[in-house]
């Protein structure tokens, strides 16, 4: 079998899953990532929803499924290139070019930059965090605020940079709801005496096991859910965060002082994704994510038969969906390059 060279950009869950499949099928795979380590956001996570399994174990599995023959170019960014019929040339930031017969993009997402919602005080007040920083705290095993104290009251705020036209994001990032619930439960386990709040507009528990997690958070873990979006935060003399929201279910304004405010930031196309879309002229949707050919059938195809998309570069996705997409897209690419159909 003549070997076909396939380039995968992005070594997150989708890219790793795809690399594993394609390499086992016999393609010659090159995996590129801008970070020095593989795993993308997964490498910075502690536990996964809904089953609280370890992110690091999953990552090890995904990495171990990528055979050694796969060449790995880490810490390099694709900055240019051409997509031609049956061939793809990519230019890397160090100046070298690599050529392949097929391309699979799995360039993923960035977390919404919380600085953009100035009213929440991220980067201004000491004790405002994002969910990514909280995962690091869990990973390190220490929950403490900037002055080294153990927090006694914690508020999670949902929909930061999701469903918010003020920052030009009208879509729902869908994974933050359940992430907030999962992190609240983890907090409770670490801090049995703390008061833990979740402020939300809607809780969208769409996946298998999500609603049950929410149920447990209320019943077993005593998390307090308040339906109202926080609109303003201030800081007091002790560095605590004073938040203002409406408790919409009693129709009264609400003021609360907490030791930590955690912003559940939404997903936006990664900077890398946006750059590649510009460079190669890939179609993007109104949300800025790469737009595949079809909404249900061809969710990984582009107008170039030998270029596929996978994972959160096409829109907010759960980890499960990203891995599935990586595998599906790689099979489709394999079929295309090795003339399985036609």
């Amino acid at each position, binding site marked *: 079998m003549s070997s076909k060279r396939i380039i995968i950009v992005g070594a997150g869950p989708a890219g790793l899953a795809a690399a594993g499949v394609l390499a086992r099928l016999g393609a010659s795979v090159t995996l590129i990532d801008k970070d020095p380590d593989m795993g993308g956001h997964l490498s910075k996570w502690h536990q996964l929803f809904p089953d609280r399994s370890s992110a690091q174990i999953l990552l090890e599995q995904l990495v171990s499924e990528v055979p050694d023959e796969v060449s790995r170019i880490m810490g390099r960014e694709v900055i240019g290139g051409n997509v031609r019929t049956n061939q793809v040339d990519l230019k890397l930031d160090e100046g070298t070019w690599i050529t392949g017969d097929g391309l699979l993009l799995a360039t993923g997402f960035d977390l919404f930059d919380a600085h953009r919602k100035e009213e929440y005080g991220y980067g201004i007040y000491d004790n405002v965090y994002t969910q990514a920083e909280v995962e690091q705290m869990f990973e390190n095993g220490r929950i403490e605020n900037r002055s080294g104290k153990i927090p006694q009251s914690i508020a999670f705020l949902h929909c930061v940079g999701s469903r918010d036209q003020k920052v030009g994001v009208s879509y729902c990032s869908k994974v933050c709801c359940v992430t907030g619930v999962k992190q609240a439960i983890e907090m409770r386990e670490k801090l049995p005496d703390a008061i833990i709040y979740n402020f939300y507009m809607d809780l969208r528990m769409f996946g298998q096991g999500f609603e049950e997690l929410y149920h447990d958070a209320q019943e077993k873990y005593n998390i307090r859910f308040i339906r109202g979006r926080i609109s303003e935060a201030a800081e007091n003399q002790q560095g605590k965060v004073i938040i203002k*929201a*409406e408790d919409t279910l009693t129709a009264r304004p609400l003021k609360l002082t907490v030791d930590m405010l955690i912003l559940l930031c939404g997903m936006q196309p990664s900077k890398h994704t946006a750059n590649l879309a510009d460079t190669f002229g890939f179609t993007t949707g109104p949300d800025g994510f790469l737009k595949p050919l079809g909404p249900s059938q061809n969710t990984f195809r582009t107008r170039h038969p030998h270029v596929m998309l996978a994972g959160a570069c096409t829109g907010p996705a759960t980890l499960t969906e990203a891995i599935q997409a990586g595998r599906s897209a790689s099979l489709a690419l394999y079929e295309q390059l090795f003339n399985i159909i036609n």
Partner: protein
Amino acid sequence: MKEFGFQKQKDRQTDLDQIDLSQIASVLQIVDSWKRCIGCGSCAAVCTAGQFSSFNPRRTQMLARQGCYSTLALEVAKCQLCGKCRLVCPRDVDTRKLMHELKQLQISLLP
């Protein structure tokens, strides 16, 4: 017999079969962004009038949507039209213009 204080009152149901929403429809036409409200409460959270009075912009607009005119008339009068709510609405509802129009409507509804 012991008096429990229960009294039979007029039905408090919002009766959408009976309510005339034509006046609200005209406001909806002027402020069409109003249709997008999802009731998140951002406006009520920052409301300058709401922290010192019973005013609640989210509840007030909902009273209007459901045609509860008598309560609406009393509520919307408390709005100071400061426009702070407009800066936080995630659905970009022009809340200030809405309150301005509801004030206009409210006065025409008063006895």
